[in-house]
């Protein structure tokens, strides 16, 4: 009986896996250039959103410092994978780092680990602070990291940036890691850690009364979140192929916050929906921003239009639906199997 059930589950799982792999294969063979970029950026943004949601939504520590964390992760992976010739020509690195030529996966993991170390070192003192003080300190993490990136010229080439970073990111890596992250966060929320995070997020004092070591679990939350976010930053830099100290500044941070806020913080599907909405919107609105000709009428380029529209959407969502589009609702199998049919039935009965 159980073995039969298991076989059924394995069969279902392999069916879904085959469908997903088939879909990705279809995407990879058919998409080129701009459209491929949109799909990849969506995946990367979704990974970053999931990482940020671990700290900002579940544990409810509203941190804006993940831009700085991503920056250091991206620099780590780019320094580890850059061609040696480029490094010796433009940068002034210690010998072991100059000769380092790591493959993609170890570099990715190293980026995550460095992000974790860095975030713990930076966030630990900030845990003494609460509310707006913490937000301010976390903005400080961004500013400090950007500033180091600008001034540590021998490592980062300053504001001129690094080029020639190998293009490793493709659909398989991005979506493989995205599915792994979704699975991981989903499992996390059902584990001791995740439940402790959510408890801290709901009521910190109650959580500590229940015997949860609040500071320790906050640090765990930061470790997990920063690792995912760092991987996201590393994937991004291997997709763009160039690095610059200003890439993850407050405008980027704002976009991620907007994704989480619009999609609905507190659920996995909310984070992914938000990432999808903002990524597709910003990428598809890009041609409009650069100016175009409509029926002989020349529309001038409007640099900044995308940010203006995203900000407007965000403000409207915050006023009229502060919990985000999905709120606390998680899209799962039950949505398609039970909730949607039930809702349809209700509508039919009312008629």
């Amino acid at each position, binding site marked *: 009986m159980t073995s039969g059930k298991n076989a059924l589950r394995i069969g279902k799982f392999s069916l879904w896996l085959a469908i997903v792999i088939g879909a990705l294969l279809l995407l990879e063979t058919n998409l080129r250039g701009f459209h491929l970029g949109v799909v990849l950026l969506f995946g990367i943004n979704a990974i970053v959103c999931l990482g940020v949601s671990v700290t900002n939504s579940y544990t409810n520590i509203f941190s804006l410092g993940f831009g700085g964390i991503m920056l250091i992760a991206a620099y780590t992976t780019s320094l580890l994978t850059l061609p040696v010739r480029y490094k010796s020509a433009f940068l002034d690195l210690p010998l072991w780092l100059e000769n380092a030529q790591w493959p993609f996966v170890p570099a990715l993991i190293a980026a995550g680990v460095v992000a974790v170390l860095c975030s713990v070192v930076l966030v630990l003192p900030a845990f003494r602070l609460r509310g*707006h*003080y913490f937000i301010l300190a976390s903005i400080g993490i961004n500013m400090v990291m950007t500033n*180091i990136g600008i001034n540590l010229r021998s490592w980062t080439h300053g504001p001129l940036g690094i080029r020639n970073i190998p293009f490793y990111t493709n659909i398989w890596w991005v979506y493989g890691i995205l599915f792994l992250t979704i699975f991981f966060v989903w499992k996390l929320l059902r584990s001791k850690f995740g439940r402790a995070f959510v408890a801290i997020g709901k009521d910190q004092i109650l959580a500590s009364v229940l015997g949860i070591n609040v500071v320790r679990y906050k640090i765990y939350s930061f470790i997990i979140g920063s690792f995912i976010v760092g991987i996201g930053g590393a994937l991004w830099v291997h997709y763009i192929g160039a690095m610059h100290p200003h890439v993850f500044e407050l405008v980027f941070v704002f976009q991620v916050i907007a994704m989480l806020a619009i999609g609905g913080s507190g659920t996995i599907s909310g984070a992914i929906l938000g990432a999808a909405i903002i990524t597709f919107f910003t990428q598809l609105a890009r041609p409009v921003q650069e100016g175009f000709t409509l029926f002989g009428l020349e529309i001038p380029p409007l640099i900044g239009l995308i940010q203006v529209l995203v900000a407007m959407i*965000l403000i409207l969502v915050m006023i009229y639906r502060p919990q985000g589009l999905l709120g606390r609702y998680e899209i799962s199998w039950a949505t398609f199997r039970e909730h949607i049919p039930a809702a349809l039935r209700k509508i039919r009965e009312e008629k």
Partner: protein
Amino acid sequence: MGWYLAQQLINAFSYGSILGLLAVGYTMIYGILGLINFAHGEIFMIGAFVCFFLVTLYHVPWVVGALGAVAGSTVAGLLLERLVYRPCVKRKAPVLTVFIASFGASLLLRFLFMMFFTDRRRAFPIPELFEKMYFLGGVAIGLRDIIIFVTTIVIMSLVACFIKYTKLGTAMRGVSYDAKTAQLMGINSTRIIVAAFAVGSALAGISAIEYGLSFGILNPAMGFMPGLEGFIAAVVGGIGNVPGAMIGGFLIGVGEILFVALLPPALSPLRPLFVWALLFVILFLKPTGIFRPNVKFEGLWGE
């Protein structure tokens, strides 16, 4: 060395004045609404732009332009309150939601100006009268520095008196300390919020003119760094505490300029780093800022 230090101190005081006025705006709005008005730097930027347009494009006298800047900032602040914050507050949105909305408003205004007026730096109109310099021993004091400093001191004294002695100011302090009880005492909190936004934004407009006089440039992104530093100054001075914010502004401004002036030039690009290091040190020693914050902390941010 002594003259050099004196010269740097004079430069520092004008920057401290700019930050101090911004910090007072932050602190007043925080005190009343319990909200970091992230868009305060953009209100500051709008003030500078209004003055630029009035004086450079429409050739009105400079004083009228400056008054226009204050008026423009005030109108911008009031519109922000009416269109963004009031709907949020009315729906009893959590503080974090309102903060995200203010974050959005900040980027909205900055990129709106960038969209219409491009990212280019423009020259802020400075009347020739102000270019005069006085020499005192080895120190050159510009008339501009004197005007900036004196204006700031006068305005800050007026604000302090307003908070301390007028009926509206007393009501503001009451709402800031305990909004619920103040409402039970018959204070119309919406009116107080509007007043706080008006005063804070007007101060940002004055600060913008001082910034223009002192640096001579303006662009749509100009509000970002002074805005953030003003916010730091407000936190350093104990948020919600108006005199504290003034002193905090001078402290950050003077500290920053002296950091650049006294340390070797190789370190001067690290100036933003210094500000944050100072903030971290102060928050470490006194987690609520140097002076007593004039807000209650219970129930804030769900903690």
